[in-house]
């Protein structure tokens, strides 16, 4: 775009250089001059509705004859001012433009517009949640008339706030009709669920979608609303803005790693706001991230260590509890060897927790039975083939191609969905490879649908097409040639028989992949579980993008720190930083920092440990018993079980010792996002009872069992990580927290004094209170040849279906019935009840209707659910979202497999099966 050309404009005498086409408001801001705005928002397209930004604008006069600027006697260009004031938000900067904001006409315009806006405003600031951080208040103070001449009682009155959606209340009296909320939902979220109804003064914001305001991103509208018209249900009347103290944090509900500001008062969390990170979430947040914080103050949180005495879990002191654990573990190791002990961690714990977890088990206990679950990454794939450089997904655009593979982006990584929509707007191509419909299909450049049982053949076919498309540009290497030979049978024709994919779409996809300037491949659990992630590594290499800056893989894991869990070596065969356990050099390097060298034999996976492979288990932030009754049974047979947890989960209830942990909101640490960005979070509220951070518990336990490292803070732990993990070299805890240099894409910060801690929300973001934007750890040099080693297995371990059976595929929804979300009263009603989804064709063939009650019977039992009929679902499939309030978790129903053959029966009112 021509926008890269720089032009100089003068704002109140200050010259500033900006890309041509920058709005006058933004350019002035860069010159340090505030032009007040209401409808404009730096992240939205300008509309020029509110007229608050009117300024005096002139451009150099051009001599028609010569085409050159006219000069006055002094040799200065003659400036022609527009006869009328111009809206600074819609006026674009051009070379030599002169903007005046300090004239009487501009002051009069600002007074006028403010007086107009206030004619309809209730001025109920004393009871308005926006009070204290309200642009209308602030701008009225700065530019408004001191008095309104709209004196008589004819203001519009409406009943006070009405619920415009389940999470947002609308106070129509306060609305200044700037359309920011409507435009956000339309432009950014892609949910056309808000609109204006009526016209003129009668206009109001409405939602007629069903359910109302049906958007995962609704909370953002309350941030960017420049008045108190849109408020979130859980913050209404809770606190005044100036009482809040904000602490920077990182969302722990999905792997995107959105930056947040957690605002609290008296040690309690009052709200979660987005914090700007131009590389990650810009200033957006999904509703899960915003509203799920209530779990932290849930009364069911564990407050004291518990130790089992006489079959009962009873409260104990930390000293007793840790002493007991140390004693029992030492005894077990002495009696049965270190191999009798294993450890399983969850992926939403901090890097420091996960690192010390592995260190404790491998080096203090001496066991390599270390794993995390649910796991996406099983090896060093991302160190080999991860996106090269600092991932800035918000900057993808024309020329770039993003492949989304085996992932429902909006459900599994909502703000990544916003990033991809933005990339599309900026001209990037987005290709989807998936087994089922998803919301991004409507906008994606191309969607290729695979048969879930034959995913590898589609990938093989795509790879085949990519090799063919890349022939002209890439030199043939032996590896390429061999791969091409191995894939010879996977032509478009054969693929078309297996998958609903047209030949021209396949070649268009290949062309987009090969022709990409940057090629980003995001993949999710569906492909990873099928062992197909290496096929994507091969795809990047086949496109000639292996090791290229800005290209590579992104693993979209199931939890906030799934990436970090793998990085920290919470994998049986891999050490922190992806050294192999069986590599003596890697072990020796670690031994310099660890009490002892870890054993050389790779350990067991979580599944094997849970199948009776160990005698004692240390479980941290994971709940296998809740996930599957089989695991509960196995855990019950252990000699010893220690659980570090927030709640008394089914697993904790089976433990011999339960250690109460702090959530990420109550402590410091770091998470690693799906783009490998290591980001720090800070304590945001008072801890619960005697709970302690996981890393501290592990440190103290280690000290009791022979470790000597006295880490004083997470910073000490992190800095050790940076020493042992090669990719993390050069990162240090302090500098992760340094504020990034302001990028031109950053949002406008308010012209108000900035303090470190207070997070005054303005233009929809809490400004950075020195929290830093994090850094991405570095991948290794890539080897294209070994990346091309993947070969299709020919057959996936597809379950065989009996007559009349459907293939059950487990899926994931953003809103699940887990502890985190169900603790939030406002979120609870949004969590779906157990449901299964079937295609229109199968429903018709079986005489099933929308909303029917059905029983699904799988290999390990049966569940009852509501049936939903879905457009575009492949025949023969039945989808079941994991994580809902199932009587038997669906993954247990399938014995832990992502797919299984099941039978489906419709139930009558009495719960009897009907023919």
């Amino acid at each position, binding site marked *: 775009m021509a926008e890269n050309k720089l032009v100089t404009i003068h704002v109140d005498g200050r010259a500033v250089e900006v890309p041509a086409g920058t709005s006058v408001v933004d350019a002035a801001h860069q010159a340090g001059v505030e032009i007040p705005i209401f409808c404009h928002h730096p992240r939205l397209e*300008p*509309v*020029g*509705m*509110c*007229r*608050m930004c*009117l300024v005096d604008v002139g451009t150099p006069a051009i001599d028609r004859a010569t085409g050159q600027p006219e000069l006055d006697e002094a040799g200065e260009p003659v400036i022609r001012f527009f*006869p*009328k*004031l111009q809206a600074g938000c*819609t006026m674009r900067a051009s070379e030599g433009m002169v903007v005046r904001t300090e004239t009487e006409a501009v002051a*009069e*315009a600002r007074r*006028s*517009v403010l*007086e*107009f*806006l206030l*004619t*309809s405003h209730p001025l109920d600031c004393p009871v308005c949640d926006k009070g204290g951080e309200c642009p209308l208040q602030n701008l009225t103070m700065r530019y408004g008339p001191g008095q309104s*001449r*709209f004196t*008589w009682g*004819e203001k519009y009155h409406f009943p006070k706030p009405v619920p415009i959606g389940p999470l947002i209340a609308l106070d129509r009296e306060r609305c*200044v*009709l700037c359309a920011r909320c409507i435009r956000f939902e339309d432009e950014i979220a892609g949910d056309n669920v808000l*609109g*204006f109804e*009526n*016209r*003129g*003064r*009668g*206009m109001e914001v409405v939602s007629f979608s069903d359910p109302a305001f049906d958007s995962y991103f609704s909370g953002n509208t309350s941030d960017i609303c420049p008045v108190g018209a849109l408020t979130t249900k859980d913050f209404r009347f809770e606190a005044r803005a100036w009482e809040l103290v904000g602490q920077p944090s990182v969302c722990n509900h999905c792997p995107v790693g959105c930056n947040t500001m957690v605002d609290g008062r008296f040690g309690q969390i009052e709200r979660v706001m987005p914090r700007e990170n131009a590389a990650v979430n810009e200033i957006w947040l999904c509703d899960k991230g915003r509203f799920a914080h209530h779990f932290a103050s849930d009364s069911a949180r564990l407050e004291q260590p518990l130790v089992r005495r006489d079959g009962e879990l009873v409260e104990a002191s930390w000293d007793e509890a840790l002493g007991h654990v140390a004693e029992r573990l030492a005894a077990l190791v002495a009696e049965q060897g270190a191999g009798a002990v294993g450890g399983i961690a969850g992926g939403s714990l901090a890097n420091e927790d996960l690192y010390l977890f592995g260190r404790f088990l491998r080096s203090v206990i001496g066991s390599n039975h270390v794993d995390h679950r649910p796991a996406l990454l099983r090896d060093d794939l991302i160190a080999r083939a991860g996106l090269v450089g600092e991932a800035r997904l918000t900057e993808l655009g024309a020329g770039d191609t993003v492949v989304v593979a085996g992932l429902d982006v909006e459900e599994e990584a909502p703000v990544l969905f916003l990033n991809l929509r933005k990339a599309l707007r900026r001209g990037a191509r987005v290709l989807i490879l998936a087994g089922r419909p998803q919301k991004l299909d409507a906008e994606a450049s191309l969607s290729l649908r695979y048969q879930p049982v034959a995913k590898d053949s589609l990938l093989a076919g795509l790879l085949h097409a990519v090799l063919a498309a890349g022939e002209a540009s890439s030199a043939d290497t032996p590896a390429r040639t061999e791969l091409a030979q191995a894939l010879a049978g996977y032509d478009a024709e054969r693929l078309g028989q297996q998958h609903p994919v047209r030949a021209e779409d396949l070649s268009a996809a290949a062309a987009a992949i090969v022709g990409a300037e940057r090629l980003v491949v995001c993949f999710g659990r569906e492909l990873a579980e099928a062992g197909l992630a290496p096929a994507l590594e091969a795809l990047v290499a086949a496109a000639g993008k292996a090791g290229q800056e800005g290209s590579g893989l992104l693993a979209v894991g199931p939890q906030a720190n799934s990436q970090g869990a793998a990085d920290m070596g919470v994998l049986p065969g891999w050490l922190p930083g992806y050294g192999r356990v069986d590599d003596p050099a890697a072990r020796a390097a670690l031994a310099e920092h660890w009490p002892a060298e870890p054993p050389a034999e790779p350990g067991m996976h979580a599944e094997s440990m849970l199948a009776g492979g160990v005698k004692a288990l240390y479980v941290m932030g994971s709940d296998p018993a809740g996930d599957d009754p089989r695991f509960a049974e196995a855990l019950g047979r252990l000699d010893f079980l220690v659980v570090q947890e927030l709640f008394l989960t089914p697993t904790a209830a089976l433990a011999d010792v339960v250690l109460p942990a702090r959530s990420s909101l109550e402590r410091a640490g770091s998470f690693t996002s799906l783009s490998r960005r290591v980001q720090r979070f800070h304590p945001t509220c008072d801890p619960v009872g005697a709970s302690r951070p996981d890393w501290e518990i592990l440190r103290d336990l280690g000290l009791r069992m022979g470790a000597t490292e006295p880490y004083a803070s997470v910073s000490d732990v992190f800095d050790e990580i940076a020493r042992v993990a090669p990719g993390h070299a050069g990162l240090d805890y302090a500098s992760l927290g340094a504020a990034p240099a302001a990028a031109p894409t950053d949002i406008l910060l308010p012209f108000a004094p900035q303090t470190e801690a207070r997070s005054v929300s303005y233009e929809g973001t809490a400004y950075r209170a020195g929290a830093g934007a994090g850094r991405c750890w570095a991948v290794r040099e890539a080897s294209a040849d070994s990346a091309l080693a993947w070969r299709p297995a020919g057959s996936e371990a597809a379950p065989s279906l009996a007559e009349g059976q459907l293939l059950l595929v487990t899926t994931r929804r953003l809103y699940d019935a887990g502890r985190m979300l169900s603790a939030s009263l406002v979120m609870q009603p949004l969590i779906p009840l157990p449901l299964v989804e079937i295609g229109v064709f199968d429903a018709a063939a079986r005489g099933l209707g929308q909303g029917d009650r059905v029983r699904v019977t799988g290999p390990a039992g049966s569940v009852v659910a509501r049936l939903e009929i879905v457009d575009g679902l492949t025949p023969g499939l039945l989808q079941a979202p994991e994580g809902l309030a199932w009587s038997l978790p669906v993954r247990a129903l399938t014995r832990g497999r992502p797919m299984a053959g099941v039978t489906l029966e419709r139930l009558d009112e009495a719960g009897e099966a009907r023919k």
Partner: protein
Amino acid sequence: MPEQHVVLRNREIPGLARLDVYVAHGGYAQLKRAVTEMQPAEVIDLVKASGLRGRGGAGFPTGLKWSFVPRDLYPKYIVVNNDESEPGTFKDHEITLENPHQVIEGAAIAAYAVGAETVFIYCRGEFWQEMDVLRAAVAEARAAGHIGPNLHGSGYGVEVQVSPGAGAYICGEETALLSSLEGELGQPRLKPPFPAVAGLYAKPTVVNNTETLANVPAILEHGADWFKSIGTEKSPGTKICCVSGHVERPGNYEIPLGTSWDELLAMAGGVWKGRRLKAVLPAGASAPVLAAEQMPGLALDWESVAATGSILGSASFIVMDETVNMAWVAKKTIAFFKHESCGKCSPCREGTWWLKHLTARIAAGEAGPDDVALVTQVVDQMEGKCFCPLGEFAQSVPRSTIERFAADYAERSAAPAPAAAD
């Protein structure tokens, strides 16, 4: 000068709305000539040379507007602005009912000139009789091969669609019209880009008034010089003037531009009931008022009317006799603009609402001592700040009546009870 019927030739030719009559009087011959004998650029040049200016209000040179359309972007559209909703304007109403084919032919010629293959005729929602007439006319013309694909073997084809509005004055503003046509709220859009570059569906689009396009076949038939020989140098051709209010014979009068007001008033039978003229709104509710003293000898063309500080607009003359109180007139026009403000920008939305309260209170004789001054201040606050011209139009009558007829306001402020309108 007498009336001269170019667009209103239906007055002389009974049944001109019928295709056979229209064709018998030379109808569709010019479209045929254009597509078979002329290059598109020639058509544009001819219309440019004629000096035809838009009849929708702004008087923008039509040929020039057509020439802005980029050559290499397709598809392109012609949109006929048949939204006619300005108070006191009723010319397009008569043209579409009585002479629909001339509009269709003119639009089709415009389409050929700019390279468009689709014409949308956007009619205000209340015009369903007009829509029926237009649809029937389009169907007839298409069946007879006057419009449709591959016209006269030329390889060029044009389709004409009639689209309804649903009651919104702002949809006469060209960008709001396009929003409405795309199925959105009829709110105006940012310019630039101008419709000629990115209009309907973001494609190059020419929006022209019904009357403007109805002039085009005659220009092709008789030539640019003929057209220029009518009217004034800068305002050539005829203009249909809608005369309403206090005259003996209200109605449409098509006159050469530059004809004097006195002649037009005479055609309309003079001020009714033998009363004296008090004031005229020359462009509906949007024009600053002209006092009776300003009228004698006033030439009715864009330049001469602009010289008085008012506008000719689409030439809808609302005539008011000596009995009318201008404070009441301001109340009526403000009620209109308040009702029609689209709500997009704050000065117009809030200003018209505020003014509605103020002017109603003044007209009712209940004004406070500062209310009249406040009206002036509020219109000052709106001036030059609104997103589109509607908000600017809304100030015309209150501002100008306070300036020129202060006594009327004084009378209302003093009078305890509201007086009747006439």
